[in-house]
């Protein structure tokens, strides 16, 4: 049901045209529902993925531009934040005092180490030899139980994520191994397909055995463009997604995660991370600085060495050990940078095959979870973002809710309200530009899917009916669906 007070028409640019407004008005009762068909049949010219903030960019830099409408006086801060996002941190003590404090344990030397060109990580390529350790892919660890805030309980020796690198004089926690099992299936037309399911192992464990009941969850670094707009989606919209899905009474029943947020020191609705296990960009950024690079911040001032890791505890600290390794101003600049990265415009939205794929996407009810559009509200943290992100009609294709995705994708590791089979609906925008920016098309939380169709075929659980519709499609229809997804 379209809310009468929806700001949508008012914030649309005139170029969307009166025709669209008329259609939206007539079909208004269906526009915000999650029936998919009705919603996307009135999709206006949505080439401008991020409204006024959209950049018309392709190629290697496609994820790296600031919001197109970012005021010039904020662009200096953007580039300064960028420099700290991509620059390598170094081991303390060093002459580069602005960026010392790497480790003791880490998996990457910079944010850009995993989010290369603000883009997406991929699983390690084992054809390069067994010594290759993952960088854009990390493994979260926990044992049964919950911490004080209801979050995962870390492994007592290895902590809450596995670190396969360490500074000189400190042992890395060990090495990760990865192999794939082949999963075979068939489309209704008889065409066979093969998927690959990852199996992880640990070797060279330097701090003794891991917990017997250890749970692990692999997580790929997603592309960054548009995260500030996602943060500006009103919480009420996400809650409404859950309410409306429940009201339909079908299999699709999304759940909003509730997670501990360190910056605001409270429980908040989770919207970032593969399990919506993080509420804010600031928390995500502070967590990544600490967990992935070993950089302490005002938010997380304590290194994540466990009490069993004596060498880690004894290692020199950055900033002469007197202050967090990244200071508050620099940290805030990095968050500002992330939150002002622009989504890129769609390519070829009028292409006949793309239009056909869009219809098939709707018919298969994909939009039940991959909700296409929102109008952003006020940015929640004015010091960490730009007003340019406000009041924009954006097209991220997500409900930001948790869904049971079936046994095939399950990690069996709860994360706040997310159970071991639930994953957050990932935004689909930018999907087609990952090959441009990162030279690969590995999708899903662990990068197992080689392209959009494989990602679709892994859908199960609440998404079973949608996946079955795709299985029924002809080869030509499947190609059109992929073409649509790659136009996003």
């Amino acid at each position: 049901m379209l809310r009468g007070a929806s700001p949508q028409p008012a914030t649309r640019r005139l170029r969307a045209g009166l025709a669209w407004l008329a259609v939206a008005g007539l079909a208004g009762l269906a526009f915000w529902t999650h029936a998919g068909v009705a919603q996307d049949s009135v999709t206006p010219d949505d080439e401008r993925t991020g409204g006024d903030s959209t950049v018309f960019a392709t190629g290697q830099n496609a994820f790296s531009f600031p919001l197109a409408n970012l005021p010039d006086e904020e662009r200096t801060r953007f580039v300064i934040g960028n420099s700290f996002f991509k620059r390598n941190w170094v081991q303390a003590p060093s002459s580069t005092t602005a960026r010392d404090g790497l480790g003791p344990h880490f998996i990457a030397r910079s944010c850009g180490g995993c989010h290369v060109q603000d883009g997406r990580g991929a699983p390690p390529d084992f054809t390069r030899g067994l010594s290759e350790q993952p960088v854009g892919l990390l493994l979260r660890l926990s044992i049964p139980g919950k911490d004080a805030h209801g979050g995962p309980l870390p492994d007592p020796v290895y902590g809450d994520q596995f670190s396969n690198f360490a500074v000189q004089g400190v042992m890395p926690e060990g090495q990760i191994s990865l192999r794939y099992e082949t999963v075979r299936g068939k489309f209704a037309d008889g065409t066979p397909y093969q998927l690959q399911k990852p199996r992880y192992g640990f070797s060279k464990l330097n701090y003794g055995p891991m917990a017997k009941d250890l749970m692990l969850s692999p997580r790929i670094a997603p592309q960054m463009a548009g995260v500030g707009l996602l943060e500006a989606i009103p919480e009420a919209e996400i809650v409404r997604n859950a309410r409306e899905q429940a009201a339909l009474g079908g299999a699709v029943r999304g759940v909003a995660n509730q997670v501990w947020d360190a910056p605001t020191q409270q429980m908040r609705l989770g919207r970032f991370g593969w399990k919506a296990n993080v509420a804010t960009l600031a928390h995500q950024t502070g967590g990544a600085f600490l967990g992935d690079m070993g950089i302490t911040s005002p938010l997380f001032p304590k290194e994540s060495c466990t009490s069993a890791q004596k060498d880690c505890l004894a290692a020199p600290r950055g900033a002469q050990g007197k202050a967090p390794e990244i200071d508050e101003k620099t940290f805030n600049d990095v968050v500002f940078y992330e939150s002002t990265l622009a989504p890129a415009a769609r390519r070829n939205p009028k292409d006949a095959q793309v239009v056909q794929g869009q219809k098939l996407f709707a018919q298969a009810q994909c939009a039940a979870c991959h909700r296409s559009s929102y109008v952003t509200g006020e940015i929640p943290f004015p010091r960490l973002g730009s007003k340019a992100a406000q009041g924009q009609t954006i097209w991220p294709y997500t409900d930001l809710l948790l869904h049971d995705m079936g046994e095939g994708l399950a990690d069996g590791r709860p994360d706040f309200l997310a159970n071991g089979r639930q994953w957050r609906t990932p935004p689909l925008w930018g999907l087609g530009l990952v090959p441009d920016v990162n030279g690969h098309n590995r999708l899903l939380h662990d990068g197992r899917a080689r392209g959009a169709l494989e990602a679709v075929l892994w859908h199960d659980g609440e998404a079973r009916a949608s996946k079955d519709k795709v299985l029924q499609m002809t080869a030509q229809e499947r190609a059109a669906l992929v073409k649509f997804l790659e136009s996003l």
Partner: protein
Amino acid sequence: MTPVLKPVVLATLLAVLAAPAMAQPAAAANGSVAAAQAVTAPAVARHYAQLVLASYEDTLAGALTLQKAVQSFTAAPSDEGLKAARKAWLDAREFYGQTEAFRFYGGPIDDKNGPEGRINAWPMDESYVDYVKDAPNAGIINTRKTAISKKQLASLNERNGEENIATGWHAIEFLLWGQDLSTTGPGNRSFEDFVDGKKPNADRRRQYLQVVTELLVDDLRSLTKAWAPTATSYRAKFERGGMESVRKMFVGLGSLSRGELAGERLEVALASQDQEDEHSCFSDNTHRDVVANAKGIQNVWLGQYKRADGSTLGGASLRELVAAKNPALAERTTQQIAASVAAAEGIQAPFDREIVGAKDAPGRLRVQKTIDSLVQQSKDLVEAANAAGITKLTLVKP
């Protein structure tokens, strides 16, 4: 390639050259309107393609000269040989810097398979490639089990981090100059780093320098091929692109003006006052990088390019295309771009001293002046693109 100036093109060129001298806006407008009648989007795209090719050809020629210098130097390392290689590097950079105006729209330089990251990535973590102060065994060169081949270095470039630079201009620069530990001059690597028995792994250092230079030459050659006037090249597609190609030209100019040059290369350095944030930090050549970038933008806007052999290429330009719609705006943009080039030329070497000091330090003011002009120019370019009917950019109208 010899530039052939047809009479009409020559007339246009003369009008363009004369324009800055015309103080009266009306006079400038008249000159531009006369020229503009002949200018169409396809003509602008065609001439741009010619200009791009010429720029890459000159760069490739410079890189080949560098390669010769590297070959003689590594065959018999000497101080003179090292100096000759450094000079060849500096000469070639003058041309490469101008080609950066052809970036940012997913063309051959930075499309999905584009070599930009292999050619000119920075800033570079030197210890990824070779020893640095306090880390004598660091880097690929000192890791003997890592093979040094074009393929291997290309695959190591930007692996696991944007600063893990193994290839391109700046890797070569680091090998030729070494770390810049001096406050008054550039890096001061000794030629003996390349002499067996004088420095560990000198053989691998020689090999690395040769291989990485060859890779640069290969990549630059691939760019000249992409812009060659053949039926299947990128250029053929670009020339058919009409207004879409013009849009790409604007995206390139605007993105280089604001985000890259004013932002990443100048504002970041001003903010950090850190030598590591200067573009060519080993050779102290950053002041020239800035000028070359600013000139590259001017080249495309005016449709003019001064070749290595001293000849000038001229033809249908964005400036004329915009002037046909809004002569005053075109003129203002021309003046602003010229002001940016002039401001950039005012930045003094070494850049790492220029950025240091209090807010009102003369060097910082010179850098800031360049930034301010580039920012204004980016706004003018957005307006100019809008005037030409183009709105799909990476910036919206300010």
